[in-house]
């Protein structure tokens, strides 16, 4: 206790010039008993969260990794990387990877571009509140409900084809959900219809936080509207853009509900993404080992993509 008190005194308090004295030592660690108690207290506060994460996230993930190395026959012998080799040999999984990539590109590009455009156009408009409500409303709906609505529109005898036929464009009517890659593309568009809402909200928040002085300065320097947007607004929206793209990236990789309700991954297995394939292999084809391998690969891809993206973006920003 005395040591601690001495160390905490100001060097100047002894009456000598501070410069002549050795640099004050860093405060010594707290007494052992007190430190242990603090660590214990901190541990107790952390324990529930750590336990929950370990119990419901890490343990199942560990079990999934373990299961992926075992065969799906009745006795489930250890089979090394046999389940992972399915990615090379099973055409359904190859198609699933292609679809997942399409979903990632579609769910990143469309909500970003549309969200930014709608936010910019409605920010200053008179009807902005109403327009924003229209765009944001689908985001409040559940994915399954959205899929049911789109199913009503996209089936061969659905609303879209009926409208096309009635306006004399019957030659464009087709089975929107039947042929690849068109079926995956229309589902990505349906997803964008829903997901754009949140991007609009985030971009609007970003736009509101831009100081008007920067725009005024740009205008005084003679920048036209596009130049102001490109060189003044867009750079200041970077933090929001990082969040929008990061969220879209992960959403694209784990897309499931819309696909499941609209096509269940079919016809055949043409519209499966990795998330759907994981479910299909595990619960329908009754191959939990293959399903576990897909789950592990999907997890690695999501983590790697998120990590690379956020690390690069946040480092550049210096956040």
């Amino acid at each position, binding site marked *: 206790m005395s040591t601690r008190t001495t160390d905490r005194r100001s060097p100047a308090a002894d009456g000598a010039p501070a410069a002549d004295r050795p640099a004050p030592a860093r405060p010594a660690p707290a007494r052992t008993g007190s430190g242990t108690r603090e660590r214990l207290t901190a541990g107790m506060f952390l324990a529930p969260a750590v336990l929950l994460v370990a119990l419901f996230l890490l343990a199942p993930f560990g079990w999934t990794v373990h299961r992926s190395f075992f065969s799906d*026959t*009745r006795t489930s012998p250890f089979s090394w990387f046999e389940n992972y080799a399915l990615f090379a040999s099973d055409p359904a999984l190859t198609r699933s990877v292609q679809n997942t990539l399409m979903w990632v590109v579609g769910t990143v590009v469309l909500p970003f571009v549309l969200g930014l455009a709608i936010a910019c156009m409605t920010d200053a408009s008179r009807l902005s509140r109403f327009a924003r409500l229209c765009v944001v409303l689908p985001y409040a709906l559940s994915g399954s409900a959205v899929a049911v609505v789109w199913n009503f529109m996209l089936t061969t005898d659905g609303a879209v084809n009926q409208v096309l036929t009635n306006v004399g464009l019957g030659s464009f009517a087709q*089975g929107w959900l039947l042929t690849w890659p068109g079926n995956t593309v229309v589902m990505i568009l349906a997803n964008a219809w829903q997901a754009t809402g949140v991007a609009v909200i985030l971009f609007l928040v970003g736009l509101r936080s831009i100081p008007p002085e920067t725009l005024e300065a740009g205008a005084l320097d003679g920048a036209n509207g596009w130049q102001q947007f490109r060189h003044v607004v867009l750079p200041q929206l970077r933090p929001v853009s990082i969040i929008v793209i990061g969220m879209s990236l992960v959403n694209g990789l784990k897309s499931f509900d819309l696909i499941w309700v609209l096509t*269940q991954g079919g*016809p*055949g*297995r043409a519209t499966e993404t990795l998330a759907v394939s994981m479910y299909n292999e595990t619960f329908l084809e009754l191959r939990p080992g293959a399903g576990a391998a897909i789950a592990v690969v999907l997890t690695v891809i999501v983590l790697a993509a998120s990590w690379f993206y956020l690390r690069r973006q946040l480092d550049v920003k210096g956040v």
Partner: protein
Amino acid sequence: MSASGRTGSAAPPLARRRLLAGAAAGAAALAAGGCARGASTSAQPGTTSISNDNATWDDGYRAAGRELKKHTGYALRPLSNPSVTSYQQVVQMTLQTSKSSDLVKWASGYQLKRLARAGGLTDLTPVWDAYADRGWVRRASRDAFAYRGKVYGVPLYESYYVLFYSKPVFAKLGLSVPGSWDALLHCAEVLKRNGITPFLASQVGGWPAIEWFQELVSKTDPGFYQRLVDGEASYTDEPARRAMDVWHDFMRKGWMTAPDFDQARGPGALKEGTVGLFLHGTWQASGMSAVGMEPGSGYGAFLLPTLRPGTPRSVIAESGVFAVPSRASSHDAAMANVGAWLDPSVQRVWSDFLQDSSANPKVRASNPVVAGLQRDIARDRARALVRYWEASPPSLVQGNTNDLGGFMAGQTSPAETLRRMQERAGDEWAAWKKDEA
């Protein structure tokens, strides 16, 4: 610091502790409740619980249960989970626990064999033998309910795959029930000429993709169908190729609905006259009534004719089963109820509810359309073939069903589809036999 001040400063931690203690107590209570036997599957006097994946049948179970109670003292208490996939997971998991229901609705054939292989089902061989002695089951169908010689399920219902049609539409177009393949083709041509899509074909929900495949293969050669599903013939053999070519030809002629046509709309489409013939199980009869079509006057049904006149007659049959988990909470009551399930008085109520044929061949359907089909099947001595969904190992059937769905959407040619199906058959039969060994 005043006394009141101390009290004031001490209050927040105390409240927080109380809050935490309350939350902990609540969590413990929830956990304890969760660990306890669920009220839904716990034993309830005078009833047996039954897990079921078709909530629209709940009233039928209750009605049949009231009749059962007169025989056994136990009624039926349905516990429904309408999602088939989720239902299967729940049943398979709970079979290994003490939270299983008393009776479980399941599919017959290889679906039942796989469940029995995992353990947890009661041997119902004595019950089956007692039924067989009374003539309440078809002895020839025993294999569809057995695994390694022991019976693990009693028939819950038996449906046939037939073509439903609208009697008013047929009368308007001057059509009659086709008795031969050529007559069927004539029907299709007339329907198409009048702007009606002749056949309903769908892959919505996955499994309906098997319907036309099993029907065309079995009507090409029923013996081949049996060998095919037993793993003794190849999907690339001539009868399968011929059946797929016929199907492909129907699709090219525009005789089939788009593959994303929802079968739930089938009865309505028949009534409206937008679709001519609906290939489906006879359990669809209740759906016909639901849209206001009366059996006999509103709609009729017939078996698909064979492709060649000399081909033996056959019918695709679908049977559900009742299985009894060995750890059922009211095991004795469950055994009593499966032992009386096929009693004609119980089946009368059940068959009337379903408007379908009973699994007890001595009980005649009250629905005149289904009764007529039963009569035709008996008269022609049509061979009952197990539906494709239950006739081969589940992993093989699921994969091949996906391939058939792809074929319906035009992704693969008939030859390529069959090649893929055969490739999978080789792998999956080898895996099944290896597991059995």
